[in-house]
């Protein structure tokens, strides 16, 4: 996920006026900016808060030169970090891009503004599969940005047989060569799925069973990691690890021995979506930004830069057949994929307690 962005950014620093180029490309492609310009007063600002390394940031410049609206672009590392920023106040973001369960929580706590889809005509382009999602059943508050799955990335030269099950992460043969998620939701989720439970269970007994499994696994785990996984897997430091499909593709590009599989027990499907938090200073500009990002050209640029999967139909249609059919970015079978839902307070507390117990 990281390297292409660095190259792109470097290229654009070299090619001055790149943003204008991007705008021309967008205009050449018949993208209609007519409706955006009328709102342009020249002093409008839209504050955007996105995941790190999760956008072709040249698009922000393109948006600025097309609309005259200035983009302030900040990034966060986790949904929880985003939540604590919004909750503690003092910030005024117009567009944020949290994941599904966090959007559910923000809706529940009345922290979002409903979107005016009249200002987001490109929403039409979203795959109906991703409309009216569980976290936003009437699709009032969100427009999907990207989605992906979780699976196991592994070194094909060092496993006895191709990995098919989450059970491989608990296999003593790979003791000391296993990396594990360093966040409680994903880590406990894997144990739940292996036990055949839902990711969203609020049953304490089931969660404790998952904890026991993770406690048994701990001696086999080399390290609990997030971003450090890139170095460790690319350099053959570990044999297998669970991670997100988009990042797995990036790792596979720099180490040919790596492969990625969505385990047979099923896995997590996550969607990150645009929302507008309460307190946004300029809702119309924010909606314009969301619409821009849902356009074919912006969507294509983002897919190329980021490596995650797009919910936009025309962007998907324009992809290489090899990408569509590799089974990593666009799995054929969605039946075994389950999204995270927002959990009640007590369950979130329990997650934190179990996680602390595991690591202490």
């Amino acid at each position, binding site marked *: 996920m990281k390297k292409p962005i660095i190259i792109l950014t470097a290229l654009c620093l070299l090619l001055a006026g790149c943003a204008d180029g991007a705008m021309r490309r967008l205009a050449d492609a018949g993208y209609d900016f007519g409706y955006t310009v009328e709102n342009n007063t020249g002093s409008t600002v839209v504050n955007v808060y996105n995941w790190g390394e999760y956008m072709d940031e040249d698009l922000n410049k393109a948006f600025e030169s097309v609309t005259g609206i200035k983009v302030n672009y900040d990034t966060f590392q*986790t949904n*929880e*970090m985003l*939540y*604590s920023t919004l*909750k*503690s106040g003092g910030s005024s973001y117009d567009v944020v891009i949290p994941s599904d369960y966090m959007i559910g929580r923000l809706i529940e706590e009345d922290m979002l503004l409903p979107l005016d889809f009249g200002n987001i005509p490109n929403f039409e382009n979203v795959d109906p599969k991703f409309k009216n999602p569980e976290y936003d059943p009437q699709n009032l508050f969100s427009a999907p940005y990207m989605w992906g799955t979780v699976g196991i990335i592994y070194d094909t030269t060092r496993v006895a047989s191709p990995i098919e099950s989450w059970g491989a992460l608990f296999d003593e043969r790979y003791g000391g060569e296993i990396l594990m998620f*360093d966040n*409680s*939701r994903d880590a406990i989720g894997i144990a739940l799925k292996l036990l055949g439970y839902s990711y969203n269970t609020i049953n304490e007994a089931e969660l404790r069973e998952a904890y026991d499994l993770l406690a048994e696994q*701990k001696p086999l*785990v*080399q*390290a*609990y*990691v997030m971003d*450090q996984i890139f*170095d*460790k897997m690319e*350099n*053959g*430091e570990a044999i297998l690890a669970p991670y997100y499909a988009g990042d797995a593709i990036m790792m596979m590009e720099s180490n040919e021995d790596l492969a990625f599989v969505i385990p047979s027990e099923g896995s997590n499907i996550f969607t990150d979506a645009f929302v507008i938090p309460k307190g946004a200073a300029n809702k119309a500009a924010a909606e314009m930004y969301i619409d821009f990002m849902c356009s074919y050209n912006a969507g294509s640029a983002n897919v190329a830069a980021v490596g995650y999967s797009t919910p936009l139909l025309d962007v998907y249609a324009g992809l290489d057949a090899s990408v569509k059919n590799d089974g990593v970015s666009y799995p054929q079978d969605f039946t075994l994929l389950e999204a995270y839902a927002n*959990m009640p*307070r007590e369950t*979130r*507390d329990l*997650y*934190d*307690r179990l*996680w*602390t117990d595991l*690591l*202490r």
Partner: protein
Amino acid sequence: MKRRGGLLTGPYIVWMALFTIVPMLLVVWFAFTGEDGRLTLDNFARLLDYGAVFWRSLGLAAIATVACFVIGYPLAYVLSRETEAVRKSAMLLIMLPMWINMLLRTYAWMSILENNGLLNQLLSFLRLPTLHIINTPAAVALGMVYNYLPFMVLPVLTVMLKIDSSVIEAAQDLGGNQATVFKRVILPLSLPGVLSGITMVFVPSVSTFIISKLLGGGKTLLLGDLIEMQFLGNTYNPYLGSAIALLMMVIVLISMALMNRFGEGEEEVVVL
């Protein structure tokens, strides 16, 4: 306080008030309130669950501090007796790593210590047995020592340089051999530097979190990790986070008070 200084110290006092005093008061306020906004001691009751984390953090910080002393004190002693030129170059070498961001330095250690890392590549090239140190508490302690060693060497060296050479000569004239001179003169006189060195190593060590995450493989939760989790974990609980932070501050203050007491009669210990 002298009045003349009032105007000149103004900017610093404003700075302190805004970014040190006010946040500390906020920490205290949050530590004693619950989610409903009422005063409570619940947060402190919950701290009991985390005893193991406290002891581990204190233990690792103590190990790192002792190691820094064992490495740093002799170095400072030797440097204090060297010529100015040697000392200056040595100081530069000690300071040099601190010009690089701590996160980057710790990442570098990660690639040195890994099982297929630089160190083990070298060892296996020399046909020596390889080391498995990454993702253990030992690696965390090593990271602390590496990052905070200059904070031990520099104050000790400064104090040693201030020791009047005529005092040492007098001791030698009175028949003290090298060991006696060191034990009876140099060691006691350098104690204030040692005490501030201990404080300056122990305090950041006890509150570190990124070192344990990168070098300890995230398997050993430290106090810093625990506090981070309260703010950025599943449950946003700044109240419990503040209570842990407050307890940590109290521990640090107590240890500094002990240090000051220990060094009583000496020059006042430099407090952070």
